[in-house]
């Protein structure tokens, strides 16, 4: 079948016009993946095209790139599925990472962030007999986290990293959860306190779900981040705006059956945190001008009682 790839090219050695879209038209087998097509280009049409790949079987995580705007492992993406009627495919490098050449991005920030979470087991005792034995059950619980192949697709699509590259990001946080929930590791509270960092820590995730959407291995990084947040609260590591935000959410819904936005803003910032509160003033003023300022005395939901009962039932269950 015939396929047309529009590949975004970048050549840092060209003095000008170093970014362009190049079209390649070729005949490929019906079962070909996008990677097969790109390799065809590189081997038979244009040796100057640079791309990364290794295993071709979605286990090494090397060939992450954007196809029609969405990050994918191209070895796991069949041409026919995206282009059943010969539609052109747009191939671009992954997002949120600097491009080195063509489809190859610089992964050094990705791995620096991985390193930041100390991605190795840290027991604080010697094993009783030669080695630490982890039960089958405990390892099975970690299968999702351990599935990560560090391809970077979640980082490419993270909407927080797009505006704030200090965020540690979905991949490193998912990796952190793999160690937090490993029974052989004894640094749980140190790890969680570290991830609690206000600058770029786990509370910066906005739960947009992009990482869950694009992860080719079902790791669901956002869910792993939510697990970590819950565990941090459980062990009492509560000195974060994130915790206050969550807590205020719960309090206001339990009390009124709906969200009290004024209180949420104040309590998330911390009512004694003058600087943070001053930050809120312009937002408040803008909201006031446009008639969007939430009421100071919160509305109550009609079926408030039922919500209180529900909240009570949940508390008892816990």
């Amino acid at each position, binding site marked *: 079948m015939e396929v047309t790839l529009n590949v975004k090219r970048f*050549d840092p*050695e060209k003095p000008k016009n170093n970014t362009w879209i190049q079209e390649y038209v070729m005949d490929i*087998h019906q*079962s070909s993946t996008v990677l097969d097509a790109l390799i065809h280009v590189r081997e038979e049409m*244009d*040796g100057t095209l*640079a791309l990364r790949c290794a295993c071709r079987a979605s286990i090494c995580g090397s060939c992450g790139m954007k196809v029609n705007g969405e990050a994918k492992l191209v070895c796991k993406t069949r041409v026919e599925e995206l282009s059943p009627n010969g539609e052109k495919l747009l191939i671009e490098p992954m997002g949120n990472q600097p491009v080195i050449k063509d489809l190859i991005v610089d992964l050094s920030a990705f791995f620096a962030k991985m390193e930041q979470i100390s991605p190795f087991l840290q027991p604080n005792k010697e094993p009783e007999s030669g080695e630490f034995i982890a039960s089958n059950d405990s390892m099975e619980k970690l299968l999702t986290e351990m599935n990560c192949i560090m391809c970077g697709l979640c980082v490419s699509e993270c909407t927080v990293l797009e505006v704030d590259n200090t965020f540690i990001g979905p991949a490193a946080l998912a990796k952190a959860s793999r160690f937090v929930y490993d029974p052989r590791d004894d640094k749980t509270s140190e790890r969680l306190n570290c991830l609690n960092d206000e600058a770029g820590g786990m509370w910066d995730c906005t739960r947009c779900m992009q990482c869950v959407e694009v992860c080719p291995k079902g790791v669901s990084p956002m869910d792993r981040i939510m697990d970590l947040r819950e565990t941090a609260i459980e062990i009492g590591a509560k000195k974060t705006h994130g915790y206050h935000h969550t807590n205020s959410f719960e309090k206001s819904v339990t009390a009124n059956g709906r969200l009290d936005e004024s209180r949420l803003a104040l309590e998330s910032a911390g009512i004694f945190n003058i600087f943070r509160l001053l930050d809120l003033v312009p937002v408040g003023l803008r909201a006031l001008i446009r008639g969007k300022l939430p009421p100071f005395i919160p509305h109550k939901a009609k079926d408030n009682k039922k919500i209180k009962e529900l909240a009570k039932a949940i508390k008892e269950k816990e």
Partner: protein
Amino acid sequence: MSEKPVPIRPGMHYIMGGIKTDVNGETGVPGLYAAGECANVSVHGANRLGANSLLDTVVFGRRSAEKASDYVKSVPNEDIPTKSYVERDLKKIKDIIDSEGNLRVSEVRNEMAKAMTEGIGVFRDQKSMEYAKSVVEKTKIKYRDSIKIQNKGKVYNTDLLFALELENMIDCAESIVHGALTRKESRGAHFRTDITGRNDNDWLKHTLIYKKEDGEIKIETPDVTITQWQPVERVY
């Protein structure tokens, strides 16, 4: 997807041979250590079983690293005259970039790969292996005289990288054909259709392939040292 045929064929999974090392990753060259799939500690025999390549990384990777580190500490910290080596390598790269042949590296490589799969793939016999050997010989000449690369750049030049890789691939392919042709029996993954049986009387041997400076191949077949574990046939 499930209703359409899925193309399937055998693929290379693991290299059982490699640079000969002892249990500490030491090769025959002082100061050169090898570990992982490039090395051969001779723990796998003629058929590496599932999950056993972990030994190469977890056990022998660690041992080689420790030994290499000890070695570095034991030798005097001298200035090594690297200039001539750097110049040699730069010239090699320049020669590839300036080469004016008419064959793409991928074309030359795929031709050799096809012959290796056909001649020395899952099943082999004398004739098929000799065919593979003859193609490898031709590939050497094509690589020397007729390749060209399109990418002349200095950033992430995979065109150049694959040319350099092909040179090493030819070395590996050459060792594989010589090793396979030497072994007059079937054992593990070396499955000959013309000599099907395993022959412990004559072939409890390693095959060592050396390449001399002038390109001449030397083959040795030292005996396997068997201590605690007797070799047995895989029956599952």
